[in-house]
């Protein structure tokens, strides 16, 4: 642990290393770099949610001047894979192929047209004549697993599907203690079911990639991805070329939020370059993002909780029915996480978690900020509020009585890992009390009559919810870092970690600078290029600052040791015990040699050398951050409109390497949580076509829809983290929706158990309750 007062670069509000380039509009995103003359590939997408392709007539498309290539399922290798960018072997089912003879959702790939330009490729797509055998459609997870439902994955070569004949992509069941016995001993048992809906990441930059062959005939893929190394491995496997022949470059990314932890374009784009020998570019347009990008798993979440007379939880069961859409990307691990992230928050000797994950003919669910936890917490934190009110207890006191505390162990973590058994976890740091204190004080509630409107038609109240999350995927995540010394005492920091706008390039550079005793400007960050940066699983699981950060700190320490040897040499006999003081090696006699001087001498002294060190890090630790969200809402009883008046989120993140960037993560997460709770909802026709696939009709919060969201940082100095960090990137999206639900209850006495709280849904609920 480092004394905070000693820190010169870490814990400082320094501008992001890429901020200057961003505000100048530098051409540093994937689509800005496409080589001149690249061919444009356009996918013909299915208009049907479920159909078999009987035939595709390509001749008319091929006749269009400028159309170079048309491929259907008959022309490409059939290698089942998962689009989920996860560690090998991926815990997601291999149920996807490059092009198939069956389509399973509106927007599924049918064929691809490669042409000299976008318009010609589009024209080619329009001229393809496809004969479909349209099949019955299933859209709800509960319907999908009923007998007689249309079987979505009836192919014989998929692997890892739990029970394809029942449309079950995955199933999870774990138990700690004996839940049935716990219920039988309980004085009272409460059971409620909640449902959460389809939403999407809506990164401002849609998915995009391009590929080309370099002068050595190697395949180079430039892509907006969170997982360059997984892209390399999966593209190699699907296209049956060696990993060594592929180089993946990740430029700056225009947002990810989990949506770019997927191989949505690269498998096919790479294939087209291998086929034509030419550069090829592929992108999703905004409507395609909605149809065939990824989404947050819709779920039905049921909690059943047994308590003693004094309000102590003695049994807690959580049952989930999740909808993974047409393919099972992250289909096992997201629903696993729904339980493993939320159930441990309240202590109980008896815990059970069961999740069934069904295929449907709707858009594919996947990784999305929170990774299953927002679904679980909407249920859990609504349910706990309901229990407290039923018991006549103060909701905060009821929670305090049962919340996990510092020193407690988390028995679920050992049973429920990344698609397999996990690792035991002890809570070493927990700042939740302080989080509650800060957030509750920041949202005191106005209780005032909104001006100009009769008060009794608008109701205001405060509600809250708490949560915990994880930091990295224990036993799974691994990150490498390499640091290379330059003559002027600057350092190249090469990392596989992918900055998707989170600021990880900056915070990792801050850590390296701190250890090396130099300024942030002395660290030249490069991420990520599979040819020149070390492996990193990528940016997901709230891991980067903790896992990649530890690798960076260890690499920097090794470099500092090597430079110390150079300094020792320079000082000769009078070195004694060498200390290190903010960039200076200090001998026992007080002689000081700066890192930069040692760096220069390492190149041009007696013993010439290139000092460069690498380190990699993995751990079975996963220290949980904690968060409290307090919100004041206003409900218009005449229109059902819910408005967030005031909201605060306080997070125990261990330590903020860069407080400004940490606040950015918190506020952005809360905004996403407000969208999830109030306005964002993908809606579908009876035949499975999304009805609002545009940013006109799918309502992402705009500036006028949000108040000044307040963020608070609580630092508990986690002993296992570099400089005491845990994580901050995902947690604050987890508890916004239940906090709003609880506030709506406090204002109106009406309990809403179905997201999102659109005016229509709220008004109907108010009417039903006679409010």
């Amino acid at each position, binding site marked *: 642990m480092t004394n905070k007062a000693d820190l010169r670069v870490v814990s400082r509000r320094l501008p*992001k290393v890429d901020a200057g380039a961003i505000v*100048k509009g530098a051409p540093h995103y994937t689509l800005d770099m496409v080589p001149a003359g690249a061919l444009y590939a356009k996918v013909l997408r299915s208009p049907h949610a479920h159909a078999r392709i009987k035939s595709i007539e390509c001749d008319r498309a091929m006749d269009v001047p400028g159309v170079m290539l048309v491929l259907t399922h008959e022309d490409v290798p059939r290698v089942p894979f998962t689009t989920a960018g996860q560690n090998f072997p991926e815990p997601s089912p291999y149920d996807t192929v490059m092009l198939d003879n069956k389509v399973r959702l509106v927007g599924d790939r049918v064929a691809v047209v490669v042409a000299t330009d976008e318009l010609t490729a589009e024209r080619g797509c329009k001229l393809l004549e496809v004969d479909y055998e349209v099949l019955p459609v299933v859209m709800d997870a509960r319907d999908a697993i009923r007998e007689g439902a249309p079987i979505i994955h009836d192919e014989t070569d998929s692997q890892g599907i739990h029970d394809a004949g029942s449309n079950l992509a995955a199933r999870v069941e774990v138990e700690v203690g004996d839940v049935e016995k716990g219920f039988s001993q309980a004085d009272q048992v409460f059971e409620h079911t909640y449902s959460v809906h389809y939403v999407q990441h809506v990164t401002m930059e849609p998915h995009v990639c391009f590929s080309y062959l370099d002068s050595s005939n190697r395949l180079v893929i430039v892509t907006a991805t969170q997982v360059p190394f997984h892209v390399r491995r999966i593209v190699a496997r699907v296209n049956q070329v060696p990993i060594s022949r592929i180089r993946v470059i990740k430029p700056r990314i225009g947002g990810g939020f989990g949506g770019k932890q997927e191989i949505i374009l690269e498998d096919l784009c790479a294939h087209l370059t291998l086929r034509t020998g030419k550069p090829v570019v592929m992108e999703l347009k905004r409507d395609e993002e909605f149809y065939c990008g990824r989404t947050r798993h819709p779920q039905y979440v049921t909690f059943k909780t047994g308590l003693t007379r004094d309000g102590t939880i003695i049994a807690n069961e959580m049952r989930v029915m999740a909808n993974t859409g047409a393919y099972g990307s992250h289909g096992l691990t997201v629903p696993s996480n729904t339980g493993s992230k939320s159930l441990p928050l309240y202590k109980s000797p008896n815990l059970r978690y069961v999740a069934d994950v069904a295929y449907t003919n709707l858009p594919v669910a996947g990784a999305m900020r929170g990774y299953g936890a927002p679904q679980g917490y909407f249920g859990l934190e609504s349910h706990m509020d309901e229990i407290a009110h039923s018991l006549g207890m103060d909701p905060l006191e009821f929670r305090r009585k049962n919340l996990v505390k510092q020193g407690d162990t988390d028995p679920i973590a050992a049973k429920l890992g990344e698609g397999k058994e996990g690792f035991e976890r002890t809570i070493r740091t927990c700042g939740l009390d302080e989080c509650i204190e800060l957030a509750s004080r920041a949202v005191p509630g106005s209780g005032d009559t909104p001006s100009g409107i009769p008060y009794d038609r608008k109701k205001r109240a405060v509600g809250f919810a708490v949560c915990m999350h994880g930091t990295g995927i224990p036993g799974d995540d691994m990150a490498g870092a390499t640091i290379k010394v330059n003559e002027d005492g600057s350092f190249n920091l090469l990392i596989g970690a992918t900055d998707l706008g989170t600021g990880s390039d900056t915070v990792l550079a801050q850590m390296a600078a701190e250890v090396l005793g130099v300024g942030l400007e002395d660290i030249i960050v490069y991420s990520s290029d599979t040819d020149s940066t070390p492996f990193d699983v990528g940016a997901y699981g709230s891991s980067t600052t903790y896992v990649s950060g530890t690798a960076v700190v260890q690499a920097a320490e090794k470099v500092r040791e090597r430079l110390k040897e150079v300094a020792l040499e320079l000082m000769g006999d009078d070195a004694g015990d060498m200390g290190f003081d903010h960039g200076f090696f200090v001998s026992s006699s007080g002689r000081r040699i700066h890192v930069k001087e040692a760096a220069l001498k390492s190149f041009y002294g007696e013993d010439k050398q290139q000092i460069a060190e690498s380190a990699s890090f993995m751990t079975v630790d996963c220290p949980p951050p904690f968060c409290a969200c307090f919100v004041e809402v206003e409900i218009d009883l005449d229109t059902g409109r819910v408005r967030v008046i005031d909201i605060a989120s306080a997070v125990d993140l261990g330590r903020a390497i860069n407080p400004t960037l940490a606040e950015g993560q918190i506020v952005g997460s809360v905004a996403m949580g407000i969208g999830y709770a109030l306005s964002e909802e993908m809606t579908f026709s009876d035949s499975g076509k999304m009805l609002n696939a545009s*940013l006109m009709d799918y309502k992402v919060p705009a500036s006028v829809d949000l108040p000044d969201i307040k963020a608070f940082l609580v630092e508990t100095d986690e002993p296992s983290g570099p400089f005491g960090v845990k994580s901050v990137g995902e947690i604050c999206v987890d508890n916004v929706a239940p906090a709003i639900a609880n506030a709506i209850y406090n204002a109106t006495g009406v309990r809403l158990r179905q997201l999102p709280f659109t005016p229509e849904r709220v008004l109907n609920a108010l009417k039903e309750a006679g409010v």
Partner: protein
Amino acid sequence: MPLHERQVPDLKIKISVNDRAFDVEISAGETLLDLLRRLGFKSVKHGCDTGNCGACTVLLDGRPVASCLILAPQVDGSTILTVEGLAICGKQLHPVQEAFIETGAPQCGFCTPGMIMTAVSLLSENPDPTRDEIRHGIAGNICRCSGYVKVVDAIESAAKKLCDRDAGHDE
């Protein structure tokens, strides 16, 4: 038949982008967004292509527009400013750019060029906006990362910088 499939003779227009004159051939269906990117102004982004996200915002004769909704033939004779042309004499950052860096407003940065252009226009019309007026001013620019707080902070700070600068000029 869609517009872009008709046989329309290629057109030639004259425009000024960031104080550079261009005499360019365009096709009838080309958007201002595509034209600007083709001319090398890559700060102008494809976010939605339907005028809903604001990532392609540029100043057309001083007014902010979604360049994805403007056809190139409409801008003949016009003056266009993108974020690449905002720095004073091409070097010194504009106060809005400076403020965005200092407050930590950009995260992924994809919306930032459009957001900055909207902010520049807002501050030229209303040099001393309230936070609420700023929120209304940028309502057409979606940012998915920031929750807008630091963006509003940046524009507030830029207003002060511009005000101080103008006061300095008056003396």
